């Protein structure tokens, strides 16, 4: 049987198993083992578990549970709400400052927790009621929080980037740094939109009031004392110090990524114990159990995805698929567009973890052959996958918002995120035109990439 036919059968089998509703990890493992049994030597089946163990016993990969622990510890405390309130107190005088404060708080919280849904939940539970009380439309309030949360998988320490670094064999330090420029770009774009939207909604509120209509809360002046501004800083500064400290430990050469993750986890637990008095076993249990639940689910998917990729590679499916893509002789940018479109479509059904690990062996060789920097591509791919977090049908962040603000209709939340999806597309376009937005920072720190 030709490699092409085997590849098609492998793809169809995967779709069948996945869409049956089987857990992703077991579906990937089943199809891999089935094809090993049919098309590979019998002895290969003896090494199935060894393959999975060896792939999982990678200390960089195993930093994932530790980063999740750090995120869960911060996410389950009041740190997000305090961070938001502190930033809001300092920015309230800027036009659209409330919306901008939400974007800044989301970016900082995302960098601390590394999680999009956790960011949405933590910042949104304080930010959405406040924005609505100040007259912001529910649609905009929901949209900006959902979009702000997506920064969680772009800013370091991003779990998605850890997986990309393993799958693409790229430097994790470079990837983390490459996410910072685009992260800042998106913060600027989101903030700019927040200011624009504020002016529009303010004008509408003013017109309504001038025509004898109801006075919107938009028109009320907000006054905060110096005490209000400094009150929350002692609670927020330690977490920002943790964020900076972790980065210094990593880039100052003091700690490896996994050591940074371990250190971050312990420090986050210490901070919530000291600042929020969350030290009792009953308070720590939900943090640890949710960390283990998510880590186990993810690590099973990672292990089985790597087994799946191994079978694809052994049967020359990935190599043939990559060669076929190269043989299409698409222009550099057409190739990138096709691949990103595929990532978007896969994002309808699969979590970023599976998309990266399943597609990397197929899409990375053609991209490398076309002259793309894989660090740069990792960032672009991450932003595209971020879009999947705020657009239907999966749009995890949409459902997090629905959960914390149940009275906002789903339709409004979806319409609220549309401008942000457009801004993210614009960001991708800018990063394509000016690649140094992503590569400039790592190149400045590590020197020019040789890969």
């Amino acid at each position, binding site marked *: 049987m030709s490699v092409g036919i085997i590849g098609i059968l492998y793809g169809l089998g995967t779709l069948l198993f996945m869409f049956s509703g089987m857990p992703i990890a077991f579906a990937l493992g089943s199809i891999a083992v089935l094809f090993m049994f049919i098309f590979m030597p019998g002895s290969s089946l003896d090494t199935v578990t060894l393959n999975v*163990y060896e792939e999982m016993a990678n200390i960089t990969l195993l930093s994932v*549970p530790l980063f999740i622990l750090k995120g869960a510890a911060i996410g389950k405390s009041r740190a997000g709400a305090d961070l938001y309130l502190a930033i809001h107190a300092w920015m309230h005088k800027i036009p659209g400052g409330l919306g901008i404060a939400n974007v800044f708080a989301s970016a900082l919280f995302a960098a601390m927790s590394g999680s999009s849904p956790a960011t949405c939940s933590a910042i949104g539970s304080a930010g959405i009621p406040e924005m609505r009380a100040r007259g912001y439309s529910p649609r905009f309030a929901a949209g900006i929080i959902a979009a702000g949360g997506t920064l969680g998988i772009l800013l370091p320490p991003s779990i998605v980037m850890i997986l990309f670094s393993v799958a693409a064999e790229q430097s994790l330090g470079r990837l983390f740094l490459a996410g910072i420029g685009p992260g800042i770009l998106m913060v600027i774009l989101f903030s700019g939109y927040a200011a624009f939207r504020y002016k529009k909604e303010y004008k509408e509120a003013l017109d309504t009031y001038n025509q004898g209509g109801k006075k919107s809360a938009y028109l009320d002046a907000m006054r905060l004392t110096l005490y209000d501004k400094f009150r929350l800083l002692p609670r927020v500064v330690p977490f920002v110090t943790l964020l900076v400290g972790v980065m210094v430990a990593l880039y100052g050469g003091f700690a490896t990524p996994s050591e940074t993750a371990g250190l971050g986890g312990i420090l986050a637990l210490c901070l919530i114990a000291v600042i929020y008095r969350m030290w009792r076993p009953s308070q720590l249990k939900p943090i640890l159990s949710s960390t283990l639940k*998510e880590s186990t689910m993810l690590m099973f998917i990672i292990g089985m995805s790597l087994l799946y990729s191994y079978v694809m590679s052994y049967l020359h499916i990935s190599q043939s698929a990559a060669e076929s893509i190269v043989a299409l002789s698409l222009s550099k940018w057409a190739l990138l567009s096709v691949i990103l479109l595929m990532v978007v479509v896969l994002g309808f059904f699969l979590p970023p973890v599976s998309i990266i690990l399943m597609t990397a062996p197929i899409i990375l060789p053609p991209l490398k052959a076309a002259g793309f920097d894989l660090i740069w591509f990792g960032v672009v791919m991450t932003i595209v996958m971020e879009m999947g977090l705020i657009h239907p049908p999966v749009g995890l962040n949409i459902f997090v918002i629905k959960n914390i603000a149940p009275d906002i209709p789903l339709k409004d939340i979806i319409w609220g995120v549309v401008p942000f999806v457009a801004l993210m597309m614009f960001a991708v376009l800018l990063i394509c035109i000016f690649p140094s937005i992503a590569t400039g920072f790592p190149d400045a720190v590590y020197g020019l990439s040789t890969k």
Partner: protein
Amino acid sequence: MSHGVELEGTKPSLTPKVGGVLGTLVHWQAKINSYVLFVSMLALLAACLVLTLSVVMRYFLKWPTDWQDEVSVFLLVGAVFMCGAYVQAERGHIGISALEGFFSPAANRMRLLFCDIASLAFCTFFTYKTWSMLHEAVVEGQTTSSTWGPPLWIPYGLMAAGMTLLCLQMLLQILIALKTKGAAN
């Protein structure tokens, strides 16, 4: 990656109460899962402490750090595999549910039963191979390739035990689904 954010509707469905031998087995499996979860929590914290210690020892005490990575790997691999059954009990291994709306409730019950049986078949094979790997590691005295060289039966043993618990958990869920005509799903 939800980092502990539980959404309404994604929380695990309650397992219907079943009596007799099956009920006793479910009770014991839940008890074992909760003990294993507790030990895994300690393992997770221990891994964090070991990695933190590694930085302290290297930079402040100038001591060599040749064992910390492997200890952390063993702790984390062990915690992940040992929690497989607990996560399965909570239906936390995510799958694609896009087709759910296209089937009748009866067809969905059959589909979910098929998924559980297929998952159990794969996990049983994987568990069998894990025990074989453990047997080889014990008989041949396999160790890791580092200078410290700890025995490999430790992580393999945890993998085998965790996968066995996962299979038992799946088997119980299938038996419950058959007994309650799918109400467990």
